[in-house]
């Protein structure tokens, strides 16, 4: 990037808000995704939506890529810089602008930390349910861009269920407002849903209006241990089938239990084959009734031990430990590659078994845990990126895992997004016309391809005439394109 562009960026935001030192560039070359990195040419810290707008206009003029970034906890490489790019740092926009107690909404800046929003709204007896494992550091902007889920997804849904309105700077620099405080609103296309989960490729969020709900009156956190994952899986299925919807229904396999115990020292039995972390919430009487039912189901399915958190503090500890499962697995081996395969929830036991089988076949360690209640699994390979041979095996194993998930009607990502990490799997899940639909949206909104281009899919393929509609046809056409 030439000095002229840097100077123009400095004119927009001020000299000290454009960082070009090699140390700063290195510090923004990665996010939480393993083995992915890229050096940006500069880091720019905008302070107003107008700054963002001007930066994007300049990018269209000078043809460089703009990569929005929250806290960089993303797990698909969404904020990893491409070449010829700048990082647009949004993590300092930390104001909660309004908490509307009458309409139950919160208007926030995109850099607000998820857990901080929780704390603030809970002071008013309100509740913002999405709680990704990274919530102590992830930003709301990043959550919206990835449509983040969390431990409470089963009962309360994911980020998109709570976004009411957005102020967005489009790739060409226009600032638009969509949505609002209306509970019902069907004016025009449902643009919100296109932008939520767009992984920073279709617009930069500068304000976010969120829906809040009343805080559940009470809750209870339970732990059940099993000899095998199969029994745990059966328990999950039975709980759902008995029409109880816990707020949280998470499972951990033996490898994960051991790592979590090593980190959190909670006194978990490290020889248990699997554990379920279950939280029920709501009216105290209902909580009472549901936890009793759950206990019975656990016992029936061979639970070896069953525990109820004695205090709020203990419950919090358990949930925190679960949230750190991913990072705790890093204790075993240097590199930890976490995946995000998701299947319709009745297939959870089958998928878990298959993952173990694949790991055994390739002789690699895969720890497994996840949001059992909603079918979102996180098979996590424990490896060493310096060991090229093993890395190859890991890649092959994940390929098979995704194939199997898709075969079961699942998806290649339940919450982390496609980003850079899963680009190559996207076409396994979608037929070419569906991907071309996405590409068309991107092309129309971002004709110069300046906003986080290179993530989710390649822009390239655009064949004339009739589109092939299945994977087989595409392969047949493949030669024509090259």
């Amino acid at each position: 990037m030439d000095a002229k562009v840097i100077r123009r960026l400095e004119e927009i935001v001020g000299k000290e808000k454009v960082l070009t030192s090699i140390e700063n560039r290195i510090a923004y070359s990665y996010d939480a995704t393993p083995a992915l990195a890229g050096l940006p040419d500069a880091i720019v810290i905008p302070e107003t939506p107008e700054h963002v707008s001007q930066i994007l206009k300049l990018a269209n003029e000078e043809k460089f890529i703009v990569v929005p970034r929250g806290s960089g906890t993303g797990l698909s490489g969404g904020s990893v810089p491409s070449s010829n790019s700048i990082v647009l740092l949004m993590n300092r926009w930390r104001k909660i602008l309004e908490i509307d107690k009458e309409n139950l909404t919160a208007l926030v800046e995109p850099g607000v930390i998820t857990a901080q929003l929780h704390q603030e709204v809970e002071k008013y007896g309100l509740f913002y349910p999405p709680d990704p494992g990274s919530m102590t550091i992830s930003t709301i902007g990043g959550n919206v861009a990835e449509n983040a889920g969390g431990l409470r997804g089963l009962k309360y849904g994911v980020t998109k269920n709570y976004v009411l309105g957005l102020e967005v700077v489009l790739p060409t620099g226009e600032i638009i407002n969509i949505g609002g405080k209306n509970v019902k609103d069907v004016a025009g296309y449902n643009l919100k849903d296109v932008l939520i989960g767009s992984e920073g490729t279709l617009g930069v969020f500068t304000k976010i209006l969120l829906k809040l709900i009343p805080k559940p009156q009470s809750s209870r956190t339970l732990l059940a241990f099993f000899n095998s994952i199969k029994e745990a899986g059966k328990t999950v299925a039975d709980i759902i089938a008995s029409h109880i919807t816990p707020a949280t229904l998470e499972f951990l396999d033996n490898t994960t239990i051991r790592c979590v115990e090593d980190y959190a020292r909670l006194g978990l039995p490290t020889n248990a084959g699997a554990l379920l972390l279950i939280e029920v919430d709501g009216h105290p009487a209902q909580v009472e009734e549901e936890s009793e039912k759950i206990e019975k189901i656990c016992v029936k399915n061979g639970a070896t031990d069953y525990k109820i958190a004695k205090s709020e503090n203990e419950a919090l500890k358990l949930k925190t430990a679960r949230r750190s499962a991913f990072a705790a697995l890093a204790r075993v081996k240097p590199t930890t590659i976490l995946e995000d395969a998701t299947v319709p929830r009745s297939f959870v036991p089958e998928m878990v078994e298959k993952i173990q089988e694949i790991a055994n076949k390739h002789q690699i360690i895969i720890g497994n845990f996840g949001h059992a209640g909603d079918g979102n699994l996180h098979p996590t390979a424990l490896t060493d990126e310096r060991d090229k041979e093993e890395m190859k095996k890991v890649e092959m194993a994940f390929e098979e895992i995704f194939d199997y998930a898709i075969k079961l009607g699942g998806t290649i990502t339940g919450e982390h997004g496609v980003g850079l990490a899963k680009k190559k799997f996207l076409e396994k899940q979608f037929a070419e016309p569906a991907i071309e639909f996405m590409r068309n949206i991107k092309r129309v909104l971002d004709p110069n391809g300046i906003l986080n281009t290179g993530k989710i899919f390649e822009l390239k393929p655009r064949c004339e005439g009739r589109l092939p509609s299945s994977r087989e046809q595409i392969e047949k056409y493949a030669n024509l394109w090259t």
Partner: protein
Amino acid sequence: MKDLKIPSDLIVQCMHCGMCLPVCPTYNLNFLEKSSPRGRIRLIKEVEDGALPITDDFIDEMYFCLDCQACQTVCPAGVKYGKLVESARIKIFELGFDRQALVKKMIFRIVFASKFVFKMIARFVKLYQKSISKFIRKIKIDRVLPEKLIRVEELAPKISDKFSDEILPEILKPNGEAKYKVGFLTGCFMNVMYSEINIDSVEVLLENMCEVYIPRNQACCGSVMAHYGDIKIAKELAKKNIIEFSKYKLDAIVVNSAGCGAFMKEYGELFKDEKDESLREKAENISEITKDINEFLYEIGFKKPNAELDLKVTYHDACHLAHTQKITSQPREIIKSIPGVKFVELNESTWCCGSAGIYNILRYEDSMKILDRKIKNILETNAEIVLTANPGCHAQIEYGLKKAGVNMKVMHPISLLNIAYKMMKNLDKDLVESYNEILRNRD
């Protein structure tokens, strides 16, 4: 020259999840990734890989870090961040990249390394505090003195009238049959600035039936030097202590300053490649038996005082106690065991106060921003006394409270315990008086 490679195993353990960012005081000052644990680890990695030379900015980042190790406590992946930043500093120091190295070396090797010089300087400072200070101010020389020097003067707490190692004999026996034989580290700062804390500590140990050994020739523990990268002098001092303390057969070495205790627990590691087998073994043994005083008393089932102290207190976790030694509940248990004492938990109690060795002198501005946050939290507790178990934190918080114009006392938990013991026996007039003084300060 010794191989200065930073072990790559330590570096790759970090999976850049970012869970450590919210607890890092420096990241929370500027919200820049390079000033976060994750960013610093990445910079260290690039330096090790040869992709980044040791730049000024890199050095600055390594010393901007407080080495508070809060990031290490929350890291689910078990990254040994403290080891990483310390080895990076050793590298900077030994390769001669640190511009302040000469000054630091002088301070470390001349002032700290010799007890004699340290005490001589302390005596001079004492004299200065008593008379010259006023004189200088009167004739207004302070206007021309360098700013940093003035600050050192302000930051330094009052030097005690008598140094503890000059009051305490080498061996002290409890009143009755001794149950434990313990060594006691008088330290450098504790010895000259908080001499009374050392005396309280020894008295409390005696009260708990310990025979106390205070080796005459003990040295400074070496922690400050090690944290700034001067590992050579740190090792020399450690060796001296290892030899001195190994002269007695001790059940424990009791330390009342968090930073010193943390470092003595690392002596074994420091000498793990030592060729002299007996020294290596001794070092290991010292590490094993070193205990923080709160930890030790808790373990031996300390004597519960039964005199009531009508006080509202709070507790600040010293980084090297909470994050390095993982001691958080013991001091609280000790404080809560004193009848009548109302304990108020301090918000963000494990957040660094900004003292961090000599950080508050070398990086005054940053240190003060961090201190302000601490003082704000302390004031919110409405306590009468802030308890903390490290001389650095003690002085820093005292300074912060003074700056804020608040009349709140800072104390070591063990001093409070000693007051309770004394009240029980209605013995020591001074201590009882200091308690009464607190009560008088109430409106």
